[in-house]
């Protein structure tokens, strides 16, 4: 028995090393191996906004105010604009509300602030005045950002004005601001700094890279050998079928991990992502991620006799998983049904655990659910896959 076990391990290793050697010597495969994570990282890293801020948005300002308050609003807007490293707005000064509307229609500006003629007068008269924000309804996301930014600007100006008024009316009040806004909101993160979208997607991309390597790599490698005919040589050798699977899986695990590490290095070096958790835990999670997909990979490669079929099945499985797992978009924003589906996908848990570890620095005890689920997926699929593979390989 121990001899059998030793043979099994030796043969698995030999086959795995053979696969890695074949892979390392195939220039095209090697190039795609390095290019894939880099390409993914760069693409996702740069197409998505790095932060939810406005940048160089063409914006119109129409100041019709006959008093001085309007000028102050415009000045505050200009100051806020200049305080950022990049200009938020590219401001165009217009003379009427009508021209602002027309320019939005022409899409030369994405919104406009109109200060009415009686703005100062109304404030002086003790009435509540208003500035008008014309939004571009064809571009809801930018509009929402503009609205948020201007709301903040206007309320801060208004509260300044209010505190001046309060101070004038009630000179004895030590902190007039307290009277206007008795409490405010204060945000506090659990990690230092301000994480950007990239920090959100980086764990997702790492999980995804591993998923592709484990599923596609495995299925591709088995069906390629089947097509080339070399699989016949391995099957007709007096070795256990299990060592074929183990050997193939071993090679794919190594490949997947290398790719994930490459992705990790890229995120750290290129996008300044900081790993807040421990590297040991991270390595364990990466390994678990590979494990949770290997069974599915084996099963599909056993069932699909042609490389092309295997790839098609893979794409059908991996693509929706990519979108539903929360790798790229938050699961919480999805409809309830989709959230339910998302809970059934191993990638969801891999992404979640990796995100906890990388972004939040959560320890192992904080992600036991994810770890158990991944282990479960891996064990169940591998247990199903091995007999399926054994049967399929000699029809």
């Amino acid at each position: 028995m121990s001899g059998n076990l030793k043979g099994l391990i030796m043969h698995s290793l030999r086959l795995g090393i053979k696969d890695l050697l074949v892979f390392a010597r195939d220039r095209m495969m090697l190039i795609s191996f390095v290019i894939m994570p880099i390409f993914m990282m760069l693409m996702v890293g740069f197409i998505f906004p790095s932060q939810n801020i406005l940048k160089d948005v063409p914006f119109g300002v129409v100041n019709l105010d006959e008093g001085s308050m309007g000028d102050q609003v415009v000045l505050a807007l200009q100051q806020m604009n200049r305080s950022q490293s990049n200009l938020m707005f590219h401001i165009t000064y217009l003379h009427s509300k009508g021209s602002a509307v027309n320019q939005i229609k022409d899409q030369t500006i994405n919104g406009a602030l109109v200060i009415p003629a009686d703005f100062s007068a109304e404030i002086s008269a003790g009435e509540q005045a208003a500035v008008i924000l014309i939004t571009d309804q064809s571009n809801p996301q930018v509009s929402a950002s503009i609205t948020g930014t201007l709301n903040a600007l206007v309320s801060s100006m208004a509260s300044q004005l209010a505190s001046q008024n309060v101070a004038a009316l009630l000179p004895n009040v030590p902190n007039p601001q307290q009277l206007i806004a008795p409490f405010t909101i204060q945000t506090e993160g659990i990690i230092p700094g301000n994480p950007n979208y990239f920090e959100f997607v980086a764990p997702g991309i790492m999980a995804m890279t591993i998923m592709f390597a484990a599923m596609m790599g495995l299925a591709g490698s088995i069906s390629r050998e089947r097509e080339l005919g070399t699989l016949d040589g391995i099957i007709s050798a007096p070795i256990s079928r299990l060592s074929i699977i183990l050997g193939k899986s071993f090679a794919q695990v190594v490949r997947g991990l290398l790719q994930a590490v490459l992705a990790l290095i890229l995120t750290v070096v290129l996008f300044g992502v900081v790993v807040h958790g421990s590297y040991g835990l991270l390595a364990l999670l990466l390994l678990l991620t590979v494990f949770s997909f290997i069974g599915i990979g084996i099963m599909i490669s056993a069932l699909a006799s042609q490389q092309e079929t295997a790839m098609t099945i893979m794409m059908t499985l991996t693509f929706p998983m990519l979108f539903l797992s929360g790798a790229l978009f938050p699961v919480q924003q999805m409809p309830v049904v989709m959230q339910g589906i998302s809970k059934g996908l191993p990638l969801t848990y891999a992404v979640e655990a990796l995100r906890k570890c990388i972004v939040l620095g959560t320890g192992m005890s904080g992600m036991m659910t994810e770890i158990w689920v991944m282990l479960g997926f891996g064990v169940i699929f591998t247990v199903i896959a091995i007999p399926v593979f054994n049967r399929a390989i000699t029809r």
Partner: protein
Amino acid sequence: MNMIEVEGLTKRFGDFTAVDHISFTVGKGMVFGFLGPNGAGKSTAIRMLCTLLRPTEGSARVVGFDIVKEQGEVRRHIGLVAEKIILYDQLTAEENLTLFGRLNNLPEEQIKEATDKWLGRLHMEAWRKHRVGTFSTGMKQRINVARALLHHPDVLFLDEPTLGLDPQTTHAIHEFILELREEGITIVLTTHDMMEAETLCQQIAIIDQARIVVCDTTTNLKKLLSADNTTVIDVEIANLSEAMLSQLKNAESIASVTQSDTYCVRIHTRNTDNIAPILSALNAMGASVPAINTVLPTMEDVFLHVTGREIRDKAAASVPSVGGRRWRGASRVR
């Protein structure tokens, strides 16, 4: 002792029967050939014997081991040269051989020894450290054969070993197979090449449409024709036409007519060794006949005789063509 015993072996893929109840035995040290057209079931039969496919019905023993119940033992005792070359292009000749040697549980020094021996005998020693991907098909096939022989198998399976090879390599492989035969290795090969079967095999099973039509020694197979009173003649007809061909085919004393080139036909007589009626038939249809020869039957004639059809599609480009002989039933030229 029989190295291979096959009894009613059958393989079905869904509704399609690839191998239909074949039975035969192969004695130790024999070269046994499966001869048949593409798609006849030769490869499927070999793949079952190599434990690469599970039989649907029937049983077989290879080197005394059951191909279903004792797969591991079977694998230990066989070498396989399949239709596709079992080598990794990215590995060198030596690396490939070492890998498969190890998978066959050979000790390192034995692998080294066997590698030296077979590479030497196959004249590939110089290419030992080169990657297989840079080799020609012929060179690859030599290494492939070395791989199959590395662990000194009792039975060597060769599935179309010379398919697509140049005449030189084909000749070298033939010579090599004959050498192995001398050394007492039992060989099972498939081929659709009559010449190959005739040169190499002591025993041939003609397989057609999943069934073994006849299985006997090469000499006995050729005697089949004379036993049936069939004479093979080549007739050159200077003014050969489509009409003449069909007339010949319908002639009483003719079993089959095959056009071998533009002006030449091969005729199998039906139950007669008298060619006089054929001559008068030719005369009656106004054929101009510069030459006529009685020839010794080849395996091709044997195949035609037992299956009623030719083994391969000859280029039908020559005038006057025999229409539609590319497809199975239609190629019947009786």
